[in-house]
């Protein structure tokens, strides 16, 4: 299998997943209890006239599959309809919120990777020593500390007591620092543990012993170990990224950040179904693409690893 076929296959798989998900997401409107038209009215006062108007506007009298294909065609052309609450075009409605969330998730990702990967490597290289134990305990605390508690503590000390950061809102990068730290603590803790374990496997491997036996330069040994350890680290980080988008809802609420998370909460509260559908679909796209890209990067770093597992499947 050459590189381009692998990439095409992986993206195709991603596309199929998204197609399936879009179906589930569209069904949300009908899975919610009650009359879909009534659901679409949201919390406004209902008149029969209004209901008729809504049914016509959303083609609710058509069969389910026809509605789904109409919605999907719209989605492909970036037309997701209008928000029920604000009557704005959904993309215009969501875009400013999405920007904030992307910044937040991006900063957290950079924070956790830049800190956690070196810490994990360092712990592995000093296995069993005091510093390894300290890092281990930190990782344990970090991965088990609930995000809302950490967020509140940070908020109290750094924003309320020390007044280093704003208490709420999204007015520039400094207002995103505390939420980003909150978000990256548990993810970072996982990456530390993961990196440490991946590196330990490489450090105790036969090829490491053989390289040491030949007095290969230490930085070359480290290079080899890092390259081989990178696959599990990257793959899991891709998966954790998905989780990051999930936990952002809570963090945005704590820090009152007008991001996707808060928008989603209010959209659910006001039963703004088209907005919920759009955010769900957008998150699905991001998560699918993130995991596809990590797989592709892992493959490009180590193309022969796939070949060898392929030949093992050969069975001899």
């Amino acid at each position, binding site marked *: 299998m050459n590189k381009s076929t692998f990439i095409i296959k992986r993206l195709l798989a991603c596309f199929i997943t998204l197609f399936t998900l879009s179906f589930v997401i569209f069904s949300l409107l009908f899975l919610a209890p009650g009359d879909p038209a009534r659901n679409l009215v949201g919390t406004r006062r209902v008149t029969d006239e209004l209901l008729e108007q809504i049914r016509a506007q959303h083609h609710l009298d058509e069969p389910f599959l026809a509605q789904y294909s109409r919605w999907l065609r719209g989605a492909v052309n970036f037309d997701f309809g209008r928000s029920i609450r604000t009557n704005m075009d959904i993309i215009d409605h969501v875009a400013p919120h999405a920007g904030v969330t992307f910044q937040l998730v991006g900063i957290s990702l950079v924070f956790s990777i830049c800190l956690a990967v070196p810490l994990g490597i360092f712990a592995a290289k000093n296995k069993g020593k005091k510093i390894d134990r300290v890092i281990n305990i930190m990782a344990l605390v970090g991965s088990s500390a609930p995000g809302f508690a950490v967020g509140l503590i940070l908020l109290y000390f750094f924003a309320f007591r020390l007044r280093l950061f704003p208490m709420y809102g999204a007015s520039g990068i400094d207002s995103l620092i505390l939420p980003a730290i909150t978000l990256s603590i548990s993810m970072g803790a996982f990456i530390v543990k993961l990196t440490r374990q991946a590196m330990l496997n490489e450090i105790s491997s036969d*090829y490491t*012993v053989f390289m040491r*036996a030949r*007095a290969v330069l230490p930085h070359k040994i480290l290079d*080899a170990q890092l390259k081989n350890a990178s696959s599990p680290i990257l793959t899991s980080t891709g998966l954790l990224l998905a989780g990051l988008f999930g936990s952002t809802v809570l963090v945005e609420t704590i820090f009152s950040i007008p991001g996707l998370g808060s928008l989603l909460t209010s959209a659910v509260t006001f039963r703004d179904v088209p907005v919920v559908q759009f955010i769900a679909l957008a998150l699905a796209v991001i998560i699918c693409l993130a995991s596809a890209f990590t797989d592709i990067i892992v493959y490009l770093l180590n193309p022969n690893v796939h070949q060898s597992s392929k030949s093992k499947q*050969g069975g*001899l």
Partner: protein
Amino acid sequence: MKADYTITINIDIKNLKVNIRGNEVLKGIDFSLKSGEAVAIVGESGSGKTMLTRSLIGLLPTAANLSGIYEIDGTSFNLNSKEKDWRKIRGNGGISMIMQDPFTALDPSKICGKQILDGVPKDSHGDFDITTALAEVGLDANIAGRYPSQLSGGQRQRVVIAAALATKPRLLIADEATTALDVITQKEILELINKIRAGRQMPIIIITHDIHLARHYSEKIFVMDKGCIVESGNTEHIIENPKKESTKALLSANRFLKNLPYASDESKAELILSVKSLSKTFGKVQALDDVSINVYAGESVGIVGQSGSGKTTLARCIIGLTGADSGKIEYFGKVAPQIVFQDPYSSLNPAHTIRYVLEEALEVSNRPKEELMEILSLAEVDEKLLYRKPSDLSGGQRQRIAIARALAPRTDLLICDESVSALDVIVQNQILKTLENLRKTRNMAILFITHDLSVLRMLASRVYVMNKARVVEHGSTQQIFESAKDEYTKKLIEASVF
């Protein structure tokens, strides 16, 4: 490579003690080696052979505590040195090592040429030629651009040797360097190491559990047992006149192929398994090509061949783990055939106790739990092991558990797929005896798949020889050994008899 340089090295180690977490694994070892010597260190697994040689280049686990006097060329060296100082002993102009397992000794994500170059000292990068280095170990220049996963076990081990030699060592340690390879490749690699040693006038330490190998390739021998050197001296002399009990035990455990009696022919007329014209391909690779074999009730049949010859695929087809493309398998026994796999470390579920594993086996084969004790005693497993988990057991003990598990359903045919090749010779012999007894007491046929001819000579009355997916020859074991017709079979027998 160059004929004009003669290698001189003097290694002397006195009263070496190694302690790992309160366990004394080496108990005061005296060892020495001079220029040009070929030295063998022999002993059972766990006797401390590897520990001893790893102490010489500082590659013991970090938990190890060493003491003793270590002198290289008359200069003393601290055995508890830091990694930085050990680097001066290793590789360039010092000691280099060939690892046991060619499948894990190389970095999977780097092409072989770069890996060989990695160990070349900086100042000699200029005049190092990768093509010459590969030619010395009998490989084509194009191997340099390949990844380890694209090479066979033998080719990988040649790359490992080239990488070890690229550092221009003055002493080479070969730690069970051929144990993981099949007999023919084993012989080729040993001859290669011997040739290089002679050409470079380089001293070598061969670590092995195989007395034949030590006899053939070394002049001086050290016999180790339980962390001590029990006997040492001229190889031929020690093997001919062993003085210590442990040396004698090791010698008698090593089966001298020439002197072994043939397994008696006890085949009966009743056919229990018939495989007719079986073929199977995996992608482009033909794994089985028109393979036919018969097994009769209560007999012991061997299938011998190199790795990749299709033996294991055949076993998997017989027990139904793999479907064949064409051909027919007929089984006439009452209870489905059972299998004992090669690797006793991965075939038992590590989460469960032995008792659970065996009771589960009895349950799925609809046998009463009371038979637990019976299968235990048949497989000669100590009752005390019942409440342990697989990780607490030795390789031999685990393999007995795997056999006991296979006995639970009272099968008429037991398939042993390289079931003893991961174990050391003494344990191998014990397990083989157990299997032979089982065959007689339970009137159970055994299909023994192996690359080791001496195992077959002890156990099987008939043999099928497989090469490149085909059965190339079959007949009684004696007939095959004494008058093989096929070229491949002859090569196999020649490689096995030292």
